[in-house]
């Protein structure tokens, strides 16, 4: 009796354990089956990266600006160990049985720049994403653009890496069998830009004697930028791949600041080039008769102050055209006085040339124009006056512009006051900018500017190219830290402007002597390559 009861209890224990197992199996295999299946596949899969191709960058003539070379990447587990390893080193790692277990290697395409340092800051380089990039969802092992065009058009150029999933056993041996369909890599798309790499190489050869400077070439009518040359530059190939870390720190600490893209980040006083604005304001306000002369004896007296002309002995009697041709400061002091500080500053406010031009580069900086608040802050409420406008009128005031802004100003003049903003990507749609001046006045100015190159006493004579009508203006920006910056801005041909060229050479002296001949050679080169074939 007692035993029968006990056995019944044992039997219920058996039934209980059966149901316990039944429920647990039901839970694992029926309810969570798919989940476990997924997990099991994950554990048995080795994720193998299928690197994507970054899009190429081509210049306006289809010449390759930026493409690829093969390199190897060494991973320790899943995290990056060494970037851009050479074949011999890879073999060394793989031959060692200890390290071959630890390391994973795959080939990928690193950037290669055939033109090395030409337009380096404008083209830019690639690198591994930083923390912020990873936070916004960038694959931490996918190289992205860091600077310049590589950065600005990263979304187009950058592809996305794919994966394949290979069967792996518990010891990490991988079999050539896929555990799930691969995620195919998506290659980036190529871009074509308006740069002319051959032009860049030519400009570089012209800058050989100089340490620092910049050159901008653009098409005034379309806004296409053919050259954003900044010296000193760096070799892009050193900044991408194996040597990128050491090279970057080297470049960052260089006292000549090669990382600076002077064309869009360098702020310079425009010097006499700014006289074109003073002239236009005066014409617009009917303050001058272009044929009336003023006597320039080398100095201009204003109140108890004396303002000097760049030419000690003076230019004699000059009218508007002569004044521009010889860049007479006294003439412009006089008309600046006529304009007055208030009117001058209100024109500066209306001009859009001090803002970012909107070129497709993240690094671009604003220029600087003074206003009343600035003067009050700097000199106190009564510490400034009409004397300041005289300096502004000849471009030696507080105004600062980037080379691109100055080049764009000349493009605007070339197009009689209305021109599209400069841009680099081929066929990019850009907005037009308009100067607040009448077309007739701009045409008068252009006629005067023609004399700068073609007049007997023109300051830009050295840019002369036989058979070409070039419209230009020299500028010498005073530099408190050393020798002046030589500048020259021009466009050509006069009748149907095709190119704007701006050249600045830092700490070298007069614009007409140094910058104008460089610009002239660039003009000649452009003429040979682009204009002669049209005729």
């Amino acid at each position, binding site marked *: 009796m*007692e*035993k*029968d009861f*006990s*056995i019944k*209890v*044992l*039997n219920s224990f*058996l*039934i209980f*354990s*059966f149901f*316990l*197992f*039944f429920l*647990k*199996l*039901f839970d*694992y*295999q*029926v309810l*969570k*089956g*798919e*989940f*476990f*299946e997924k*997990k*099991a*596949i994950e*554990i*048995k899969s080795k994720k193998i990266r299928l690197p994507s191709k970054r899009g190429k960058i081509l210049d306006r003539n289809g010449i390759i600006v930026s493409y690829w070379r093969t390199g190897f990447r060494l991973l320790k587990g899943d995290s990056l160990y060494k970037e851009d390893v050479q074949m011999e080193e890879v073999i060394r790692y793989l031959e060692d049985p200890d390290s071959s277990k630890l390391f994973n290697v795959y080939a990928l395409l690193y950037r290669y720049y055939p033109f090395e340092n030409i337009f380096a800051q404008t083209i830019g380089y690639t690198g591994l994403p930083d923390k912020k990039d990873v936070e916004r969802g960038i694959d931490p092992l996918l190289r992205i653009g860091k600077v310049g065009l590589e950065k600005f058009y990263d979304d187009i150029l950058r592809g996305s890496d794919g994966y394949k999933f290979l*069967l*792996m*056993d*518990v*010891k990490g041996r991988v079999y050539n069998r896929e555990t799930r369909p691969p995620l195919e890599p998506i290659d980036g798309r190529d871009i074509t830009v308006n740069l002319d790499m051959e032009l860049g190489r030519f400009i570089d050869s012209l800058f050989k004697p100089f340490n620092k400077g910049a050159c901008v070439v653009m098409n005034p009518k379309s806004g296409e930028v053919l050259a954003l040359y900044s010296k000193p530059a760096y070799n892009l190939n050193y900044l991408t791949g194996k040597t990128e870390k050491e090279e970057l720190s080297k470049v960052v600490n260089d006292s000549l600041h090669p990382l600076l893209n002077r064309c869009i980040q360098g702020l310079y006083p425009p010097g006499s080039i700014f006289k074109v604005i003073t002239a236009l304001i005066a014409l617009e306000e009917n303050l001058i008769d272009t044929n009336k002369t003023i006597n320039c004896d080398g100095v201009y007296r204003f109140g108890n102050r004396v303002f000097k002309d760049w030419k000690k002995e003076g230019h004699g009697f000059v009218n508007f055209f002569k004044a521009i041709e010889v860049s007479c400061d006294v003439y412009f002091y006089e008309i600046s006085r006529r304009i007055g500080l208030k009117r001058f500053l209100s024109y500066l406010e209306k001009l859009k040339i001090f803002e970012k031009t909107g070129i497709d580069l993240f690094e671009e900086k604003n220029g600087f124009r003074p206003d009343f608040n600035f003067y009050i802050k700097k000199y106190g409420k009564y510490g400034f006056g009409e004397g300041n406008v005289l300096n502004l009128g000849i471009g030696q005031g507080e105004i600062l512009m980037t080379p691109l802004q100055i080049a764009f100003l000349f493009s605007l003049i070339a197009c009689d006051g209305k021109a599209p903003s400069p841009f680099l990507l081929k066929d990019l749609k850009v907005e037009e900018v308009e100067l607040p001046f009448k077309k007739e006045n701009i045409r008068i100015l252009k006629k005067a500017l023609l004399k700068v190159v073609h007049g007997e006493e023109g300051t830009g004579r050295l840019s002369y190219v036989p058979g070409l009508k070039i419209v230009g203006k020299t500028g010498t920006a005073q530099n408190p830290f050393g020798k002046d910056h030589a500048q020259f801005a021009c466009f050509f041909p006069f009748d149907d402007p095709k190119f704007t060229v701006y050249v600045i050479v830092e700490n070298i002296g007069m614009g007409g002597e140094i910058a104008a001949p460089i610009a002239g050679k660039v003009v000649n080169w452009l003429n040979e390559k682009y204009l002669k074939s049209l005729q």
Partner: protein
Amino acid sequence: MKNILKVYNRVLIIYLLISFLGILNIFSISRSFGGHLFLRHLVYFILGFSLLIFFSKINLPKWREFYYLFFLISIFLLVLVLVKEEGIKRWLRIGNFSFQVSDAVKPFLIYFYSLNCSLIKKRDYFESFKMFFLYLIPFSLVLVEPDLGSAFFYIFLFGVYIFVLNFSVGVKLFYIFSSLSIISSLNFISFFIFSTLSLLLVFFIKSFKAFDRILLSIAILLPGLTVPFVYNNLLKEYQRKRLKYFLNPAEDPKGAGWQVLQGKLAIGSGGILGKGFLKGSHKSLAFLPQAYSDFAFASFAEEFGFLGSLFLILLYFFLLSSILNLSKEKEGFEAFFVLGTFSSIFYAFFVNIGGVLGLLPLTGIPLTFFSYGGTNFIINSILLGISLSFTRKSY
């Protein structure tokens, strides 16, 4: 009589079915571990099956006069393995032949225990302590091999016998309280709740004498208070770790917790219908540890899915309940022997599948008649054969 004969056939068929599924499973596993496993398993099966038939056909003589000799032989073997072998002392090697001693002594010990049980006249505390001592000896010897899982079988067997024998409620409660006391002592709060409630119960049941109450109080308090002492002072670091990882497997990255996880993944990824025979990838890539022994069930569940594994545990259920029924039909020594056979198979079933499913700690007990393991297969076949031999006699 007729009913009993039917039991014989039924048990034999289920035994063959389980063995067949086991052979299939070992075949699939051996493809990634080398074919010798499969061939050996086949030999074990043939040997085991022959012995089962042999023992079911003969009448086992009852050596009542020197049944203590069986006990002494078993103890001798269990001591021998400890003395003779090095390292983990589970297998005794004699010439080219080696066997797992804790399994091999089972027929002798169960024979001895069954006779012992049938001879017990008095049913008091003292008699039960004397009886417990007989189980404590093999338990301790196996424990130091070390083989915790196999050692606990003897405690389990004792529990079954005590439960079935006509001991008083007090005696039975004594052992129940002792084991609950140990289990609850893993956590102070659970021990506190258990001890208060059970002490209250002991003092409110009127039929208990003072003697009962004192002994039961000791059963409630003493083991629970000893366990923390043993844990802190007598256990080795790795043993403590194992216990900790069992209680909290997430802490253990690649040990038992990892093994259980792999078992779960294998079982779970089988789904309802399974991946198909020979197609289980988790074990073929060696993610499943001990796929042929401890985790044989997981490997089977991966290939044959929920329906397959349900079928397998149903087979065990029918086998075990048939054996249980047989023991109900029997009296005295035979009933206890059949119950011993039941305990052996049930213990392996419960502990192995429970361990693989993550309900119990992993102990390394193979699934009887299904996992790879010669001694286990043959010894349990013998036990089953002897039990079946009792069906030929009617009372």
